[in-house]
Every structure is written in structure tokens, then in C-alpha cells.
């Protein structure tokens, strides 16, 4: 779906008068229908990397080929951005219109889609994110989670093959976060959309097929979500905050109680403790 070959990206720094490399020789393939999570500290190059996927940024050297189109091909800019959509951190920065349905239709209008078709595309996109009832509302009356779902609908209406989410939940409250995470998971299941997700939130990595870890502009490893939990060094390096279930696992181990496996899921964690206590049978 997206192929990066030897991609480097540099920016000129006026203070030091030299080129700073933000991305260094990145090779990466993202496959169709895959769910990829990108992790890394602030400033590790995650956002810069994903902005290369649909030609928002063009590599200083190397090539990015998305669905057969090289992002350097200026004639195909529109096509590539229709295929790969993006959702960003701050919901307020992504809303352009004063009516929800008009906001969702913005991209389609620019593509010159006939009105009748547009109405059904917008309705479907809004249904998909569970915001159909709000189609005549004004976005400023919506919560952060709702606004973020409108932003997703706007991308979805373009019928993209891949959606890139750049920390879509970091500015939301817990409820908004859950709404958005559920929406992303449904996209993967229902529409088979390829998904790339940048996040700092450990609970959001578990639906991923593959986790890519970045540090100082390079991809330093590719792991499964579970491997991240197992290695405390990963958590520290990535600045991830352990869930309480993970802290509990390690603290119990420190007291000589070894639970069978690590999990961020509270139900699984509770089941393990129940099993452990039942084995002890001494209540």
C-alpha cells in the first residue's frame, strides 16, 4: 500500500547553518488492511514520517510510493490525498465549516462530486462514526470526541484506502478518547481500511498488527504490541506510562507473586488474581 525506500528528510537550521536530518534512511512497507501503530518519544520523527505518506512532505532523498504513485509526481497530488487521509491531534484545527454536514462535504466539494452522490457519501460517513444525528448541528456545540469523529467522517467521505491518525486522542477526555478509539477499531473491522496510528497511550496499541518504534529519526525496531509490555526498557525509552495492571504485575513479582502474563486489560488481570488466590485456597 505504502512503500518508503531510503527516505531521508532534512530541514535547514538557520541558527547552526546546517541541515538537520529529521528522518534518516527509512525503509518501510505498510500493507493493505494492516493496522500499524507508530511509537516514539516527542521529536523522534513520527509526525514527519507520516506526513510523507500522502505527499504533505516530500523526501529530501529517497522515494515514497503510495498505491503505485510516487509522491514526487505533482500531477497526482489530489489522487494520492484522496487515497490516504489524515486526522490530527487538535479537533478544533480541523473543522472548516459551521455546519457538521458541510464540514464533512468539504473534501468532496473540492473533488467536484455531483450533489446527489455527495449527500449519500456524507450521510454514510456520518453514520459510520455515529454522528448522523448531529448532521445539522454546529461543530462548536460538540464535545472534543464528537468533533474528532466529524474530522474522521470528513476523511472517510473521500473513501480513502488508508487513514493516518496523528495522536487523535491526546487532547480528549476519557470518554471522548473511548469514542474515537472505538470508531478507529470499527473502521478496521467494518471497512477494511488500512490504519496508521501515532499514539502515546498504551491502551491504544493493542489492536495493532505491528508496532513500529522510532528514535532520533530512525526506525529502531518492529515488534508486536505484547512485546512492548514484556520489556520494561521499551516502556522507559518510549516514555509510555504503564497501566495500573502492569504496575501491579511488577509489584506483585517483587513480593514473590508471579502472575502468568502481563496485560493492560483489567478483566484479564482480575481473572489471573482470582485464579492465583483460589490456588492458594486458604481463605
Amino acid at each position, binding site marked *: 500500500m505504502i512503500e518508503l525506500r531510503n527516505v531521508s528528510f532534512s530541514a535547514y537550521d538557520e541558527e547552526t547553518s546546517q541541515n538537520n536530518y529529521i528522518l534518516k534512511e527509512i525503509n518501510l512497507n505498510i500493507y493493505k488492511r494492516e493496522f500499524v501503530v507508530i511509537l516514539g*518519544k*516527542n*521529536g523522534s520523527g513520527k509526525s514527519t514520517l507520516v506526513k510523507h505518506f500522502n505527499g504533505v512532505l516530500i523526501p529530501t532523498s529517497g522515494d515514497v510510493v503510495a498505491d503505485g504513485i510516487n509522491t514526487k509526481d505533482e500531477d497526482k497530488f489530489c489522487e494520492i490525498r484522496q487515497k490516504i487521509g489524515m486526522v490530527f491531534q487538535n479537533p478544533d484545527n480541523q473543522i472548516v465549516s459551521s455546519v457538521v454536514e458541510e464540514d464533512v462535504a468539504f473534501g468532496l466539494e473540492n473533488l467536484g462530486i455531483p450533489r446527489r452522490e455527495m449527500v449519500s457519501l456524507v450521510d454514510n460517513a456520518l453514520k459510520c462514526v455515529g454522528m448522523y444525528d448531529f448532521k445539522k448541528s454546529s461543530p462548536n456545540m460538540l*464535545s*472534543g470526541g464528537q468533533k474528532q469523529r466529524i474530522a474522521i467522517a470528513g476523511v472517510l467521505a473521500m473513501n480513502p484506502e488508508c487513514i493516518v491518525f496523528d495522536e487523535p486522542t*491526546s*487532547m480528549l*477526555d*476519557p*470518554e471522548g478518547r473511548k469514542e474515537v478509539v472505538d470508531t478507529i477499531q470499527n473502521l478496521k473491522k467494518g471497512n477494511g481500511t488500512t490504519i496508521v496510528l501515532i499514539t*502515546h497511550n498504551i491502551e491504544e496499541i493493542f489492536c495493532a498488527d505491528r508496532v513500529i518504534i522510532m528514535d532520533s529519526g530512525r526506525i529502531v525496531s518492529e515488534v508486536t504490541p505484547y512485546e512492548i509490555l514484556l520489556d520494561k526498557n521499551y516502556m522507559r525509552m518510549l*516514555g*509510555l*506510562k504503564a*497501566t*495500573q*495492571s502492569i*504496575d*501491579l504485575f511488577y*509489584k*506483585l513479582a517483587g*513480593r514473590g*507473586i508471579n502472575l502468568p502474563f502481563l496485560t493492560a486489560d*483489567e*478483566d484479564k*488481570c*482480575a481473572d489471573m*488474581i*482470582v485464579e*492465583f*488466590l*483460589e490456588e*492458594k485456597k*486458604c*481463605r
Partner: protein
Amino acid sequence: MSVIRAENLFYCYNKGTSFERCGVKDINLSIEKGQIIGVIGHTGSGKSTLAQLFNGLIKPDKGKVLLNDKNIWEDFADIRQVHFKVGLTFQYPEHQMFGETVYKDIAFGPINQGLSGQEVDIRVLEAMMFAKLGPELLNRSPFDLSGGEKRRVAIAGIIAMKPEVLILDEPTAGLDPVSKEGILNSICEYHRQTGNVIIFISHVMEDIARISDKVMVMDKGNLIMYDAPENIFSRREELNKMGLEVPQVTKIINKVHNKLDIKHKCVITVDGAVEDIIENMC
């Protein structure tokens, strides 16, 4: 002795229009010296309105706010002093920075308090120490700093006024986990050293459970609960109805207790959970 007390406090927005909505309704409470108070509530529940009433930024429609047993609105000329005594940081305080240098930004409050140049310097350095900002940042522009550092500069600007009551409105929102932890530790350290009242508004129940002596639960402008965190988080169903959660370890231990038919005890921290499990071993 109560430091801050609210009596029959009311505040409504858009008064006299069809959009009238009360942000705070008939609130009565008292905050004792030396406490850390956690405030939780769904978006729009009135948490921030209450914070602004305590700080004297808005005037109650009815009722009183008493600071050290004195009504803060008794004499309008004194309200400026209230702003200094009750320090308030808003959400995303780094959006409100304006100083050319970190020093100027932090010094703004103390200078307006009328302190001498030397005193201001001391206050700035002290505040930076609490906020874990190195002195090498003094002459940097705050706008060149990372998100976490900016937030700490903004909080240091309030700490520098040495407020008797420090109100922090979601001080960790939108930061990465390492910066969040740093800010929480700074808050605890400040409290340990000064013993001043801290009011801490947050959506993160794990943090609330960890640092609060007492927790306020707000819903639709009403103060629904005001109690020790163990008692608050044992009322999970009521909280869920208000769109609020309990800490993850509380859920885990609740489930364990239910399955094994152990008498309920509310656990709110990871350390508490470890002890509870060991206790139930035999």
C-alpha cells in the same frame, strides 16, 4: 481551620437570556489547611467555574466565598489580593504566556505583587526549582521550549506568587506521560514543603486517587460528593452514571472480591492492591 469555604454559592452564565445555565448551584463546602483536594466531574459539570469563583475572577450571583473566614467580595478593593492568595492555572496555561524570557514570564506575578527586585529574583528561582526547571533556562524564550517545559514555566509563574491556595485546572492534559509524571511530582513536592492547600482538577482518576486527601465530585453544577478518595471510588455505579470512571486497580480488585465473595474493601492504589492480595492469601 478552614482556609476556603463556600456558602450557598450560585453562578449562572448568560443570565436573563434563554441560554441561561447555572455553572454552579448551591455549593457548600469547607477546605481545611494543608489538604490536597481532587476535583472530578464530566466536561461542563462546573469544575472550572468553581475554580474561578474561588480565585475571585468571577463574582457569585448568590452566596459567599470565604478565604480565611473573610468574604472575598466584602470589599471590592481587596479582590486583587485574592488573586494573589488563590493562584489559578487554567487549562493549557502555556497558551497564555507572553514574556520574552522565562525569567520575565515567571516574574510577572511577583512584580505585580509589589516585591523588590531582589525578592522577585528569589521567588523566580524558588519557583523554578519546584517546577524542576534548570537556571540555564532563565534567559531563553519560553516559546522555544518543549510542551512539557512550557507547562512547567506557566505553573512556576503562579507558584512564584506563593499563593495560600493553588488551583490547577487539568495541569497534565495533553502532555506525554513522562512530562505528566514530572508535573505531578512537582505538585506533591510543593505541597510537602509549603503545606499550602492545593485544588487539583483532573480527568485522570489514577492521579486523583494517588494524591488527594479529599475528592469533590461535580455534576451539572452540583457538588454531589465530597469525601476521602476511598469512599468516593467505592461508589462506582453512581460515578459511572455521571460519566466518570474509577481507577483501573479499583476495578480489578472489585472484580476479584466479587468472584471470590470477599467482603468489599475499596482499593485505589497499586500498593494498596498488592497488600490486599497478600492479605487474602492467608
